[in-house]
């Protein structure tokens, strides 16, 4: 042996290896090393499910004897069998027996097409390299993603606190308003009473008395002015226009009365009486339920929105909070898609109008990864009933962006949304294990 060059020695080793592989492969084609123990060469072979004993020559003889397919791991004979691709240099895996010798290369080591026309190349090494490069890239992305996620979590916590403080402030303001309203309600009652008195007096023909009653209760009227200011405060709620016009005429009336001038009935009727109608109107608007309504309105417009925002589930660490208020766009063929997380999804064709593809619904990922999918519901109604819905899958990446949009069925959209906050440390661990 010492005479042999190292190169020759290498060849011999290789030949020996191939020979061994050949001898062994005849019987155990298509099984993994962990199953070898079932296929030790003996006189007979027991189906792995224990259902039948057959002569060992009938293993891989291209006829299915075992119900579980275990006698034919290397052929296509058994309907429910499976074939093990060793795929040295890449990932080993099982394929259904029906893919053995079907003329299509399935195993990257070409082992499934040992008796077919298909000219399969061993591509495992290339695939392995690609896979390793890919995994490496993924790992980098994951690391970077997790780093960014940590930042976002920290920012998220801060943001959440800030918003919470805002909310508390607004809630306090709302409570104050509630108290004020309560006061005004009482005064309104008083005004109602006064109104009735005045009307009674007018009806009774005591025309001179009316102005004096009015004067007597001027203070009450002054409260109305305040009331109007209050209503102005709640500008967004519906009665604004009416109350402003009332307020203007009231100012006029106050001036009149404040001036201490005597008023004849006609003047009273022309000015104050009109005002009275105004008061009447406002008064009835501001009955208790309306007060309550206005209160709610205010809450809705000023802090209710915020409160609702803060009620949304932004993940265990509020890591998704920063997405609220943002919008992401993607053009797919002739359509521009917009995703505003926790708010809405829409589609706009180059020519046409914007169509809602859904409003924020809920998180809908599986139990173990709840935050991996969002659902937006109740978009624009569809032609054949139902309304448009969008399901958004969150994937880990270093950027936050909308990556793809599909409409597999009419009115049902699927989006891929990439963001660092979707990166999972668990995933990273799993990934590492499966590749090593």
């Amino acid at each position, binding site marked *: 042996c010492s005479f042999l060059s190292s190169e020759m020695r290498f060849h011999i080793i290789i030949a020996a290896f191939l020979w061994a592989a050949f001898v062994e492969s005849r019987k155990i084609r298509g099984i993994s090393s962990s199953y070898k123990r079932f296929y030790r060469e003996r006189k007979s072979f027991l189906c792995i499910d224990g259902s039948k004993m057959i002569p060992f020559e009938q293993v891989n*003889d291209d006829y299915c004897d075992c119900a579980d397919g275990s006698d034919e791991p290397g052929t296509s004979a058994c309907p429910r069998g499976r074939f093990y691709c060793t795929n040295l240099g890449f990932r080993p895996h099982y394929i259904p027996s*029906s893919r053995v010798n*079907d*003329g*299509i290369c399935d195993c990257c080591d070409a082992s499934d097409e040992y008796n077919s026309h298909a000219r399969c190349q061993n591509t495992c090494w290339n695939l392995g390299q690609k896979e390793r490069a890919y995994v490496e890239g993924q790992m980098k992305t994951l690391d970077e993603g997790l780093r960014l996620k940590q930042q976002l979590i920290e920012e998220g916590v801060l943001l959440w606190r800030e918003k919470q403080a805002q909310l508390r402030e607004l809630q306090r303001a709302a409570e104050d308003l509630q108290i004020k309203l309560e006061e005004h309600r009482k005064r309104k009652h008083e005004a109602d009473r006064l109104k009735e008195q005045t009307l009674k007096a007018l009806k009774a023909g005591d025309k001179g008395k009316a102005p004096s009653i009015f004067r007597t209760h001027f203070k009450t009227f002054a409260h109305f002015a305040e009331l109007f200011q209050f209503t102005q405060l709640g500008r967004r709620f519906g009665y604004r226009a009416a109350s402003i016009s009332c307020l203007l005429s009231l100012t006029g009336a106050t001036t009149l009365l404040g001036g201490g001038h005597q008023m004849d009935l006609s003047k009273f009727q022309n000015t104050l009486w009109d005002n009275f109608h105004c008061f009447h109107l406002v008064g009835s608007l501001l009955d208790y339920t309306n007060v309550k309504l206005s209160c709610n309105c205010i809450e809705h417009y000023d802090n209710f929105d915020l409160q609702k925002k803060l009620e949304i589930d932004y993940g265990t660490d509020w890591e998704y909070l920063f997405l609220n208020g943002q919008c992401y766009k993607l053009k797919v063929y002739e359509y521009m898609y917009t995703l505003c997380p926790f708010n809405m999804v829409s589609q706009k064709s180059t020519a046409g109008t914007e169509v809602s593809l859904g409003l924020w619904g809920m998180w809908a990922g599986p139990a173990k990864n709840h935050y991996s999918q969002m659902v937006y519901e109740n978009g624009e109604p569809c032609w054949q009933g139902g309304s448009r819905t969008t399901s958004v899958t969150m994937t880990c990446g270093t950027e936050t962006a909308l990556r793809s949009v599909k409409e597999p069925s*009419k*009115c049902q959209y699927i989006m891929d949304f990439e963001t660092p906050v979707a990166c999972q440390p668990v995933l990273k661990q799993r990934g590492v294990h499966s590749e090593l």
Partner: protein
Amino acid sequence: MCCWFFLRRMGPVLLLWLAVCLSGSWAVDKGNFKTCDQSAFCKRQRAMKPGESPYRALLETMELTNTRLTLQLINDNNKVRLLLELYRLQGNITRVKINELKPLKPRYEVPDVLIREPPTEPLSLLSQDENGVVLSLGAESQRVIVSARPFRLDIVEGRDVLMSLNSRGLLSFEHLRMRKDTQADPEAENKEGTDPANPAETVKEEEEKVEDGMWEETFKSHTDSKPSGPSAISLDFSLPGVEHVYGIPEHADTLKLKTTDSGDPYRLYNLDVFQYELYNPMALYGAVPVMLAHNTQRTMGIFWLNAAETWVDISSNTAGKTVFGKMLDYVQGSSETPQTDVRWISESGIIDVFLMLGPTPRDVFSQYASLTGTQAFPPLASLGYHQCRWNYNDQEDVRSVDAGFDEHDIPYDFIWLDIEHTDGKRYFTWDPHKFASPKEMLQGLLDKKRKMVAIVDPHIKVDTNYKIHNEIRSRGFYVKNKDGGDYEGWCWPGNAGYPDFTRPDMRAWWASQFGYDQYEGAMENLYTWNDMNEPSVFNGPEVTMHKDAMHESWEHREVHNLYGLYVHRATAEGLTERSGGVERPFVLTRAFFAGSQRYGAVWTGDNAAEWDHLKISIPMCLSLGLVGISFCGADVGGFFKSPSTELLVRWYQTGAYQPFFRAHAHLDTPRREPWLFGPENTALMREAIRQRYTFLPYWYQLFYLAYHTGEPVMRPLWVEYPQDPATFALDDEYLLGRDLLVHPVTEEGARGVTAYLPGKHEVWFDIHTFQKHNGGQNLYIPVTMSSIPVFQRGGSIIPRKLRVRRSSTCMEHDPYTLYVALDNQRTAEGELYIDDGHTFNYEKKELIHRKFSFANGVLSSVDLEPNAQFTTKSWVERIIILGASKPSMVTLKTADGENQLEFDFDASMSVLTIRKPGMNVGADWTVTLQ
């Protein structure tokens, strides 16, 4: 698919229409389609009641040559003469042609449907007198009796009348006439008053009587200008002793045709009917004017060769036949005999009718096949499973659906692309974004030995930037409107032209467009689907073309029912020509006519995801099979609406045992690929599809048989048990070939089905459990969701391939398992047909055709085509003998010698399994049980 989707895109343009459509909700809007009363000629003709015919045969004009008899008929009311031609055709067929003796201009005679001028046989005169003539029809003492006054024809065998024509006096022939100004002749009235005694004048009056709708007809907003005036024809047929008639598809109705006395006749007029309703005689997408009549003694057929709008009335009674006259005295006429009377009414053309006289169902199939040809022999892969949807959105979608099948280990052969794959509904093009690299996509499928179908509809977008349109326009190939301009109508692309497929030069050009040099992105695994070829015209009368549109010199009225056949034909020829005539085409069509079987497959159009639609798929395909169109299927799952999971599973189970097996879905429905309903249901659908693939050798053999003989692949039980009246109306079960009986579960929540197993002396084996059942009984079969009740006939041998792979092509070289089901005499027979699966080389005898027989304990394989040359790698891996007893030894004998085989015997089921005989399936061999 129909106009529905289109409407919403057209928006306000067709708002009115939309409102009309909407009002129909989920059912057909019957108001869009004519009833007989709304179709002027049908109303006119139907108003004519049975009675003495005004027609008289002028016996002195009779001429009898070796091949035909001619004779003039005269209408005594108007003195218009007709010419009757009578032919005896080879194979027991009598052809009766009636045309005007001297029509004002030629009347349309349907071309291109008969595969050749049918060869004739000599007719001989048996006797003649002033009342009529008797001619011999050759064999079996068959005679035709021509009675002169009134004219009628009787076909008689021995003492039995098989069929009578004009026995009810409903022969009618509206002769072509000049249009007269009805208001310009005030004298006409006077004449009638002054000279009532002159019969000639009265006759003239009658002739001139103008009814509404003779010269112009308006339906909804459409006016038919009817430049040729009235031209309808009608003839009645009496079928003594017949209570069951079948055929005249396409109708969504039972297999056994119903009488039409209380409603409309069955209508034959190819129409795109949106959301068609079941169990009624309304016209649908296709028309085959062929009716079969059957009783325990005989099966016959009537082929009414006319492509214009046609209505068929059926009535049934036991009323006595009219007196035949002295010459018929010897004919036994029993007044108790049940009788079916049929009446055909067509809008124009001539009477050209083929009386196919059987006497067996098989005889009628071969008679009809000798006239219009047989089923095109399809590529093997097209008998696999087809996955379709309106629409697979882009290449990525196609790739992922394809991958889904592999992931869930479900086989399929074809994935389909509907209209959205095109660049703006311009057929022969691809959407530049969604299908930017079609060859790459097709190569991806080819790598998995799979194929694709892309839709090519006959309406062409009017767009000067569209090459196809420009060429058709510049060559003058479009159908013309009545004013001579190119006919235009609305369809998917908006404004569209309709190529005149009746022109051979147009068809040749169209076929050339499928060439690889013309159809960009096409590859050899791309096939074609012709939809909307009724033709569908969204804004046309009854959603089709105006009858006064022009196909060169003929009005559309004359050729309407042929249009779809021509589209199908031109496309199939294109697919054949692109490979230099080597490869078989595969083309699916929605519209069809007699003869369409020669060009490919048909499906039952836009059905719905409802249990009743699943049920109706059986009689609809059975009816088509009876008239030659074997390659038939219904959209699995239902096109409109969304099926429940149970319905979807049941539909897969049913579709797996129907000839054309394709799932399809409307654009507006949720996805329904078979793995989207949970693992349990995936397993059920996978199993149904896998069963289909194991039976592919049998399907292929049945199609080869259909190609050779015209026998339907999927057939009613009565075809095989013609003397068993219990089978005559069955249409919830059927046979595949002779040997498989299928009773699909088509009831929601079914716990069991009752199947009729025919044949008193036969036995049937459950293909799943091998349980043996006696024939001639109703068998209750308990079912679960996994049950597909299918039985193999005792006495049959069915070759199967049990190694189900990704596609049929992947299974090409796989070994066979022979299922030998013994009858009570312990014998069985079967066949196996093999060729390359995709070329026309079988015409050059590159095939294997074996016959297997089992008798006296010996199973042998004999070559049915000793001159054929083909080799296969496939071998026999297993022989399963059902109803066997246990042998002591099993021996295989081949040219190489003898050897003993291992076997396993299941005594509880009497099933003998012979292990791995291993011989090549193309060789001669015997297996002996001792």
